[in-house]
């Protein structure tokens, strides 16, 4: 029982890690806490569900969810980031909130406000692995998380685009003066985080088997918690903190009850923020204060 819970928690954490990454890219590189991510997430799940019902092969379903996430994030970049005052963190924070309001309303009008169920698929079936069993979705989630983080880390550390991303993260003004293509880096950041959020939405929908309009918000908050716990400026932080949080969620729910779950997760987060605001894998605190 305990072993099974631990496995479930760690695998759920794989999906949390994806959500956390979606947040931390915007946050770490642009200093924008994108609160429209839950809604982008919701769209990924809803579009994925429609595609699944349309008998589309799973690979294309995943690509479709990621594409809608990416497109929405690009629209957000256009209406909520490009033309606003970026020096004030509150303003960019609230443009994402406003955009999220619009998205959620659209989702409600298009898909209705009632919960939607995913069709039974082979992906949700359990695979026996000795004392524990896992579902294909869970494995897919953690696998995809690892692949995407590795891909991202390679991009950020080895390519020209990654270099400009890091430059913008360090000092946007200096990057502009040096003639770096800052606009391209900003658009890329939004695009990648949107793609991640869309894909994570589909995986979580498959994992739970049901999605409702507020589905994105609960997970989104866990994603923010995982991002902060892991450290905003470290991509791998999300990969460590995601499973940790998944573990806390699953164990807390089973042993203390669902009501204690949030208390556990956010209590942990609040303590972490005060004691170690730079996160578990974050760099020195000096680095954190730089942006603010």
């Amino acid at each position, binding site marked *: 029982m305990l072993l099974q819970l631990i496995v479930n928690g760690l695998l759920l954490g794989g999906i949390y890690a994806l959500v956390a990454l979606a947040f931390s890219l915007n*946050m770490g590189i642009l200093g924008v806490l994108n609160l429209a991510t839950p809604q982008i997430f919701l769209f990924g799940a809803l579009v994925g569900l429609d595609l699944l019902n349309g008998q589309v092969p799973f690979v294309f379903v995943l690509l479709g969810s990621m594409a809608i996430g990416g497109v929405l994030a690009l629209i957000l970049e256009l209406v909520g980031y490009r033309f606003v005052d970026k020096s004030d963190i*509150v303003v960019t924070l609230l443009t994402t909130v*406003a955009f999220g309001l619009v998205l959620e*309303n659209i989702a409600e009008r298009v898909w209705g406000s009632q919960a939607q169920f995913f069709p039974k698929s082979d992906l949700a079936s359990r695979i026996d692995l000795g004392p524990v069993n896992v579902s294909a979705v869970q494995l897919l989630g953690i696998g995809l998380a690892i692949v995407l983080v590795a891909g991202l880390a390679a991009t950020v550390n080895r390519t020209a685009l990654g270099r400009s991303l890091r430059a913008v993260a360090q000092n946007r003004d200096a990057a502009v003066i040096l003639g770096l293509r800052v606009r391209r880096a900003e658009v890329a950041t939004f695009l990648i985080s949107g793609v991640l959020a869309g894909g994570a939405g589909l995986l979580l929908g498959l994992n739970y088997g049901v999605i409702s309009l507020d589905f994105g918000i609960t997970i989104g908050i866990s994603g923010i918690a995982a991002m902060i716990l892991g450290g905003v400026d470290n991509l791998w932080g999300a990969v460590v903190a995601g499973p940790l949080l998944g573990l806390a969620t699953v164990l807390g729910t089973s042993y203390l009850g669902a009501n204690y779950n949030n208390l556990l997760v*956010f209590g942990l987060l609040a303590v972490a923020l005060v004691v170690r*605001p730079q996160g578990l894998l974050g760099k020195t605190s000096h680095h954190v204060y730089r942006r603010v």
Partner: protein
Amino acid sequence: MSIYQVGLLVQVCINILLGMSVYVALSTRQLNLGAAGFMAVGAYTAALASLAGIPISASLFLGMLATMVVGLLIGLPALRVSGIYLAMATFAFGLVVESIFLVLPFAGQARGLAGIPPVEPIVVFAWTAIALGGVFLLTRSQFWLRVRSIHDDEFAASMSGLNVTTVKISMFGLSGALAGLAGGVYAHWFVYVEPSAFSVEVSIFAALYVIFGGSRSFWGPVVGATILTLLPEYARGLDAWRPAFIGVVLLVMLILRPSGLIGRGTSLRSLLARRVRRSS
């Protein structure tokens, strides 16, 4: 006035108090995204006090006092983080409070507290007026100069011998007290409280009122909260598209006038001065 209009006015009062709570903390560059958490503390304290037989106004005051203490206690560790990290810490605080009330045995847990004695509308208006009057006097006081100097340049303010720590913590205490009063009023007006009434959306909207109205002027949160509370009511024709309408209005506002409807100085001279400063 019909019951509906009175109810709307009370809602406006609650939201103005919430906006004011965010405004006073933001005046020292501390973004409080946990207003709903403070509101919950005030609401539950006042509700429990009233249920124990204490008169309503005394309960409201108790709720305010308790929340102020919580605000001061939060203000202390909040000094360690700033900017968006402080925003996220207060955000987490709001969620923690919501989940604490979900498990506290004497607070009714998920069932909430029912049977709270109702409050007269005039009492609500009086309390709101007193609180707003207090904050207004504060913004015209010498103390507010310190607050403004911290907002403009915290480092320079501390170098000039200003005790930045006490000012910032006391603004957090005030922020707590105002949100606590909003919570107490909420509890006695709706005569029922449950943890989900104090969700993150409440906190985020409190911040929206301030940014929409203008974060550099006392009248900003008043105007912002009033407009954003009444706008959905008068946009009933839009029916199911109201949230999207609000979202679009906010986006346009944030792009065109990020400083809010009401700036610090609305006189022509200060407007010109700002232009010059921006271009230099």
